[in-house]
């Protein structure tokens, strides 16, 4: 198509895209248009008279053809030109960038590796692309995985473990700053996995940087856009850390090509020990399937879980059949404060449910009479001695809070604000239970705490009428870790369907827009439903609302078997979810994995006991892997209060445990451990098909072009019109373009043929 365009209009589409059209007549332009107009008018007038006995349609057709012919002639006489800047021969540089990552070894182009295509194009001075560029440009060859020029492109090992395509382009353009760079040619399969590297800017930001420099990038996409046969563990969603003896739900996405209908096992292993598995039936060709696998978290520490499917015959890439994910199993006791406004069985059975859980300490403060409190499970006689905490330091020592049937007027305004800050600033978990003193019925509308509720409290007037409801999980509820009350998906669904109804005395009709409803309450046989359980993020922490007053019926009810552990499991999982990922005073953030020799960025947020950010602390620590340890020192980032940044370079592969201690006058705090897995990245083998989209986007954003390997030599011809580097503005004649002659001949020929048919000539 481009060849036809060039034949008809003399120049390539790129020239027209970048140039501007003008006229360079030898006589004044107005005179030409006057003569053309007069001749056209004469022709029209001649045919319009109808003296030749023609029909009106013939008159119109003949007149139009004559006008076109005269117009084409006039256009040619006006001497049209294409004004465009062109690169001056041998005065400009072209950077050729080779993607030398491991994915270029994949043999999906004519049964050969992608790297072979690169060698054919730029392997030596005689290779087709370089050969087409050299007459006009000086070329410099670079590679993505390392700095410096490549002297012998045909000898590249293609062993890059990551493709940081865009950041490499920016780096190379920086290296050539000041040189007359006409453009950059990129040979790649289009995969950019730099986003998986911590601290790297996103693709969008890098694209903007490239565009702002104005240097056209010409991309050549190498590889097959669709493998014939392949299966890949596309993604694993798993919590980063859990408490010991939690059940962990792994969401695994398996994608495939050419294996539709096949049954495959998906297995989860920890150090060679199988923790869980399931068998999936592949959907129709090209579609992905998501499975959930439950695995126990019984062994403490950083566990490296390996999720894999067996390699199938004829698979294009076998390395993408497994993925690893790091799961940190913590064996610490999370302290949760349960504040209850009245003695009720919900309290008793909640305490009983978590009584045997070594990882959850449920401290209870019960208002048994006006100004009379019963404390249960406290660490010492001073804890909660004055009732509900009055200072942030006291309240924020807990990691989770359960608020029972306790009306808002019980708290002072400061205490309500503290409760709100407990979630939004401290990052704690807050669970609201149902009851006559809860929600709108407890007077929480318009209080400083009302924003934290996942329900819209003002949507219905307070109403403590007792409603019997069946709890029905929503679609998102079936996926939530707190609601997994059976050993499998089907067992969980069956258990929910068989549970007896509970009662609610809170008139909640809808969740807030940002909340996720996990359970709906259905009255009688339905069909109406109201939200019963909802969760939402609130600032730094998380909130759960449960609008029933008697989950204990799922323990005591006559229909519940004595050995049934639904209530116990539900409460333990709710509280574990509530305190999962609650930050410490020194909250460390580190990437989950990193490559050997790469600097690992570590940041930490440091707070005092009231969880107010501190800027003047000394933050030090170490990254330890076996016998090797790297010291770490973090400095205040200045950008944000309480944020400190630093980095370390791991000496060897393995899981590194990062622990930091902040020291400030009169106060020292130590972080919970963060873990970084240092290993050879395998990202290159995932999503390894040709990604033409990114290459096209880069070309479009920078004013370059996207080419398939067969057309790569066109780059040399299109790059002539690059606006950067040393250029000269040229006027290129268009009066002699074949299209004009063809139009003229067609118009005159058509007129002649029509006149002959009508007997006029």
């Amino acid at each position, binding site marked *: 198509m481009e060849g036809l365009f060039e034949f008809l209009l003399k120049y390539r589409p790129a020239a027209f895209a970048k140039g501007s059209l003008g006229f360079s007549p030898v006589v004044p332009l107005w005179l030409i248009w006057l003569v053309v107009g007069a001749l056209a008018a004469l022709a029209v007038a001649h045919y319009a008279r109808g003296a030749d006995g023609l029909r009106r349609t013939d008159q119109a057709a003949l007149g139009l053809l004559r006008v076109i012919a005269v117009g084409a002639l006039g256009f040619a006489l006006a001497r049209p030109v294409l004004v465009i800047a062109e690169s001056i021969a041998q005065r400009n540089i072209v950077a050729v960038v080779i993607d030398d990552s491991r994915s270029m070894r994949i043999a999906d182009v004519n049964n050969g590796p992608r790297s072979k295509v690169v060698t054919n194009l730029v392997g030596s001075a005689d290779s087709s692309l370089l050969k087409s560029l050299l007459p006009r440009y000086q070329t410099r060859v670079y590679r993505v995985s390392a700095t410096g020029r490549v002297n012998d492109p045909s000898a590249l090992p293609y062993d890059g473990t990551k493709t940081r395509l865009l950041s490499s382009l920016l780096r190379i353009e920086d290296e050539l700053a000041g040189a007359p760079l006409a453009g950059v040619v990129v040979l790649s399969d289009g995969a950019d996995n730099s986003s998986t590297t911590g601290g790297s800017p996103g693709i969008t930001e890098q694209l903007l940087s490239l565009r702002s420099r104005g240097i056209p990038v010409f991309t050549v996409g190498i590889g097959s856009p669709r493998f014939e046969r392949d299966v890949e563990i596309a993604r694993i969603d798993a919590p980063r850390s859990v408490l010991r003896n939690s059940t962990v739900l792994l969401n695994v996405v398996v994608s495939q090509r050419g294996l539709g209908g096949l049954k495959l096992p998906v297995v989860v292993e920890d150090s060679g020990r199988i923790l869980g598995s399931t068998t999936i039936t592949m959907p129709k060709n090209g579609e992905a399937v998501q499975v959930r696998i439950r695995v126990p978290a019984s062994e403490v520490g950083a566990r490296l879980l390996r999720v894999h499917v067996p390699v199938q015959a004829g698979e294009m890439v076998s390395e993408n059949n497994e993925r690893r994910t790091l799961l940190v199993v913590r064996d610490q006791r999370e302290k949760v404060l349960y504040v209850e406004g009245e003695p009720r069985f919900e309290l*008793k059975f909640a305490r009983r449910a978590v009584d045997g859980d070594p990882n959850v300490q449920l401290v209870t403060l019960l208002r048994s*009479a006006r100004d009379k409190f019963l404390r249960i499970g406290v660490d010492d006689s001073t804890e909660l001695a004055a009732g509900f905490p009055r200072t942030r330091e006291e309240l924020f020592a807990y990691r989770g809070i359960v608020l029972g049937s306790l009306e808002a007027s019980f708290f002072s305004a400061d205490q309500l604000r503290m409760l709100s800050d407990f979630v939004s600033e401290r990052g704690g978990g807050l669970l609201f239970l149902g009851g*006559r003193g809860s929600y709108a019925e407890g007077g929480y509308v318009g209080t400083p705490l009302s924003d934290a509720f996942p329900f819209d409290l003002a949507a219905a007037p307070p109403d403590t009428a007792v409603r019997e409801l069946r709890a029905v999980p929503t679609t998102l509820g079936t996926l939530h870790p707190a609601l997994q009350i059976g050993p499998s998906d089907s067992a969980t669904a069956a258990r929910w369907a068989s549970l007896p109804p509970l009662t609610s005395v809170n008139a909640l009709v809808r969740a807030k827009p940002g909340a996720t409803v996990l359970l709906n309450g259905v009255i009688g046989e339905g069909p109406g439903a109201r939200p019963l359980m909802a969760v939402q993020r609130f600032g730094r922490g998380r909130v759960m609302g449960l609008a029933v007053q*008697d989950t204990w019926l799922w323990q005591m009810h*006559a*229909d519940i078997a004595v050995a049934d552990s639904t209530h116990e499991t539900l409460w333990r999982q709710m509280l574990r979810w509530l305190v999962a990922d609650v930050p410490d005073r020194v909250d460390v953030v580190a990437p989950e994995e990193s490559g050997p020799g790469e600097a690992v960025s570590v940041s930490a947020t440091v707070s005092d006991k009231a969880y107010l950010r501190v800027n003047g602390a000394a933050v030090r620590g170490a990254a330890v892997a076996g016998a090797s340890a790297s010291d770490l020192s973090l400095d205040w980032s200045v950008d944000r209060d309480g944020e400190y940044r630093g980095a370390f370079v791991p000496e060897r592969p393995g899981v590194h445990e990062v622990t930091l201690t902040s020291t400030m006058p009169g106060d020292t705090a130590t972080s919970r451990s963060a873990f970084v897995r240092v290993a050879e990245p395998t990202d290159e083998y995932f999503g390894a098909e040709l990604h033409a989209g990114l290459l096209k986007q880069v070309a479009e954003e920078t004013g370059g072009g996207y080419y398939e390997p067969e057309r790569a030599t066109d780059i040399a011809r299109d790059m002539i019109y690059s606006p950067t580097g040393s250029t000269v503005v040229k006027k290129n004649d268009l009066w002699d373009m074949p299209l004009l002659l063809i139009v003229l001949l067609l118009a005159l020929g058509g007129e002649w043929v029509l006149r002959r048919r009508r007997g006029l000539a």
Partner: protein
Amino acid sequence: MKRRWTWLAVLAVLLPILTIAAQRGRGRRSPGNDPNPNMAYDGRFTFVRVRFEPLGGSFDLKWDHDYPRAENHFMKILDELSTIRPHMDGSNIHTFSDPEIFKFPVAYVSEPGFWTMDEKELQGVRDYVTKGGFLIFDDFTGEHWYNFEARWREAFPNLRIVQLEKANALFDSFFRIESLEMQHPMNGSAAVFFGAYEDNDPAKRLVMIANYNNDIGDYMEFSDEGFLPISLTNEAYKLAVNYVVYAMTH
């Protein structure tokens, strides 16, 4: 003459039957003692009294002693003193075989010296306690112990009955009970408090309290008449409140 003897014979048969029937309904039909309606479960605390067939087929029901005035008075005290919102307009009577009893995890058993159970009730009380229910045994003395102990062992052969000390959390759950010295309201014998722990582990909850040689139901029933000493009546109420608060928190 023959007709007169016939009438006397009929009277001789009917009189004891009518007398027994009147006794059997004692308390439930007497003036001012109208039976409470059973409350449907709505989440609020409801006093539950356990009904059983009394040992020996006595025409005295036993389980209904002090009903309903004891619970009516107690609910008023509980409502007045604590943040519990009990049902004031009724109390419930269930057997251990009644599925409804599982919606009320505290139950009061009066006169366990005459406590009997059929197979369903036996299974019911086992399930009730194992799931988390709490039992208050009251109003028994002397040799009544033997039947109580036998029935308990029948239901829970592995749960030992132990004597409770003042330091037990039960006696500090709402009121701090300063002394466990009490007397039976009718025979003056010294009260002893027994209990049984879940899994026989004193670190776990008590699943029952037995007021041996005591009758807090009696104290509460007559608390508006001055029939029994006020100080002991106070102690009875304090114990009852503690039992309920303990049962709702442990």
